[in-house]
């Protein structure tokens, strides 16, 4: 496999994060493999509740109770992060791996000025003096496109718009030049023009600093514009993994195909409903046998119910977890006898 080259910055092997709820154990992340190459962007795609965000948090070992990482390896430059003691892990956060979140409106503590998260990281990881850190903070804010940074550094979050706050979050995330930035739906809460600005900013910073990005999103348009590689996640499993071009030109998993069909297109016939994937993500507490997608899949066969498909190589570097592996251009059969 191309992605398994030793050059990868971060390698995830068989990661499992389970949630121990009162009703039972929910395997939110159930044995996934990921490779993130230095300076490149990996898109992690899937619908709500399929374990994307939990994967992101697991990489930083930030999964909160009742969730727990129960197995696997997260190797960064050969070092398994799951073996690190907690204080070593904490040093790594913000310094090696940084994360930005979905909700810029609530990601800044309303009690502290904008400078605060920036100074906090810089003083923590870089042991800078107050004045040094402040100068660096102004410089960082300027680099994320905040004008008049000298003054804004003393503003409070309520004085900034959502886009500005996300810029501040990005500035504090890149303050220590992390090798990997985990961006968990960084633009979902922003309007479309600001979305484009923030994504352009991430691309610019990647070009300048050479950091790798794990971009968690459910928006395939964002993936097409920003990612080098894509991993599609469904019910805690990776179902398809390939380069960006390969995923869009030759999707092999019925779920990926469904997602692509559901993207609104300008050439879509007027007054015809947008195709959707019938049904919804199965309850993680009661997963079906065999393939987890089969209850929603038009290609489902007997074998799909009996045995869980592993990731199978389709072509160089493109893997898909499906027994059928239908071609995207094949006509979709009408589904019968299977209830969603």
């Amino acid at each position, binding site marked *: 496999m191309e992605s398994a080259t030793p050059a990868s910055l971060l390698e995830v092997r068989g990661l499992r994060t389970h949630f121990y709820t009162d009703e039972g154990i929910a395997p939110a992340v159930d044995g996934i493999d990921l490779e993130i190459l230095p300076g490149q962007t990996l898109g992690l795609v899937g619908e709500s509740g399929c374990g994307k965000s939990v994967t992101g948090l697991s990489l930083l070992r*930030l999964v909160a*109770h009742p969730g727990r990482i129960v197995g696997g390896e997260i190797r960064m430059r050969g070092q398994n992060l799951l073996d690190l003691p907690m204080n070593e892990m904490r040093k790594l956060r913000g*310094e090696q791996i*940084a994360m930005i*979140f979905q909700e810029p409106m609530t990601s800044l503590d309303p009690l502290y000025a904008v400078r605060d998260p920036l100074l906090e990281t810089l003083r*923590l990881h870089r042991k800078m003096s107050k004045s040094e850190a402040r100068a660096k903070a102004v410089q960082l804010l300027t680099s994320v496109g905040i004008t008049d940074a000298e003054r804004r550094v003393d503003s409070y979050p309520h004085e900034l718009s959502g886009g500005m706050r996300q810029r501040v979050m990005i500035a504090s995330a890149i303050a220590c030049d992390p090798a990997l930035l985990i961006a968990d739906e960084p633009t979902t809460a922003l309007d479309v023009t600001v979305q484009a600005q923030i994504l352009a900013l991430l691309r*610019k910073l990647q070009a300048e600093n050479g950091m790798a990005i794990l971009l968690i999103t459910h928006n395939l348009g964002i993936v097409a514009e920003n990612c080098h590689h894509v991993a599609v996640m469904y019910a805690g499993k990776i179902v398809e993994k390939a380069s960006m071009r390969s995923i869009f030109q030759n999707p092999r998993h019925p779920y990926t195909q469904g997602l692509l069909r559901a993207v609104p297109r300008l050439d879509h016939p007027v007054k015809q409903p947008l195709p959707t994937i019938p049904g919804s993500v199965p309850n993680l507490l009661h997963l079906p046998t065999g393939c987890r997608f089969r209850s929603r899949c038009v290609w489902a066969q007997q074998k799909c119910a009996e045995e869980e498909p592993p990731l199978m190589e389709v072509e160089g570097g493109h893997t898909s977890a499906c027994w059928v592996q239908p071609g995207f251009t094949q006509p979709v059969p009408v589904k019968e006898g299977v209830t969603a």
Partner: protein
Amino acid sequence: MSELPAPQEETLEGSGKSQTPGQLAWGQLRRNRVAMAAGIVVCLLYLMAIFGEFISPYPVADIRPALYHHPPTPIVWHDAAGHFSLQPYALGMKKDAKDEYVPDPTVRAPIRLFNTGFAYKLLWIVPLRIHLFGTSGDFPFFPLGTDHLGRDVFSRLVVGSQVSLSIGLVAIAITFSIGLLVGGAAGFYGGRVDNVLMRLCEVLQSIPSFYLLIALAGILPTKIPPAVTFLMIIGILSFVGWAGLARVIRGITLSVREREYVEAARALGVSDFKIIVRHLLPSTFTIAIVNATLAIPGFILAEAGLSFLGLGIRDPVPSWGNMLNEARDLEVLTRATWILAPGFLIFITVIAFNTLGDGLRDALDPKLRR
């Protein structure tokens, strides 16, 4: 890669510097006249307590058996010849045929500002003999009359405020610390820690607090110095009082713990301790401050109640509660109504604290800000 579009220019609210949350709240509080007045009253009360010995004309323990239940001394603004003077005079009093005190215009003494009287230490450090006011020599001047032992009620009231007012403050400081610690830990760690701590709070809260106070005060030895009694009363009050605050703090911590800025701070590598101190506790402060302000009168009342029952601060050390002890007797009360003065001050203090607390709540709640 597309060119980075210039972000839209946004103007900051107002033109000048950003206001900190503290400045915003202060500005709001200053516009609330009632709360400001209450705040000033509270400050005056504490000034009175701090400068107690300076303000009081007599030592609190001075007994004058002959002058028991002496009414407040009349003050007149004319001299012996009946001419108006800027110098106020204290009139003497004598007993009439019915054994009641009546003013005796023939005996008078000037009331002097910065009069020399008994020796004391200002702020417990500077030895002084100067008092705010007083009369020369032995001329009896009791602005609020005397009690059943002929002790000056005004002096006892002023010095007694030291006990009554400081008990509220110290007790709230202790309650606050325990409440923040227990509530913060319960909220932050959750799970079993939360369960154990909260059940403990509920057990404490399920006992009627005044009976618990009486029971605890009852097992205190009687022959201990007043300073120790004072500390023990504070200990008892805090022991009973922290549970309510802990529950409030726990609730806020639980909700703030899930906020994204806490998660963001974690993702930046900030330690648990720093997250609690810098993000969790400060967000509980606004509610905790209001709670504390509203709880202080409760402690003052509880001390007064204990002392009233003779279980708190004991004579001859004055406190507002044990001064009221004497007012239990209705017959005494009809003859010497002035011994109710401490009750009036308790009333003023409680009202002032409650009003101030209400004002603080309005000022600190951004939703109520105009």
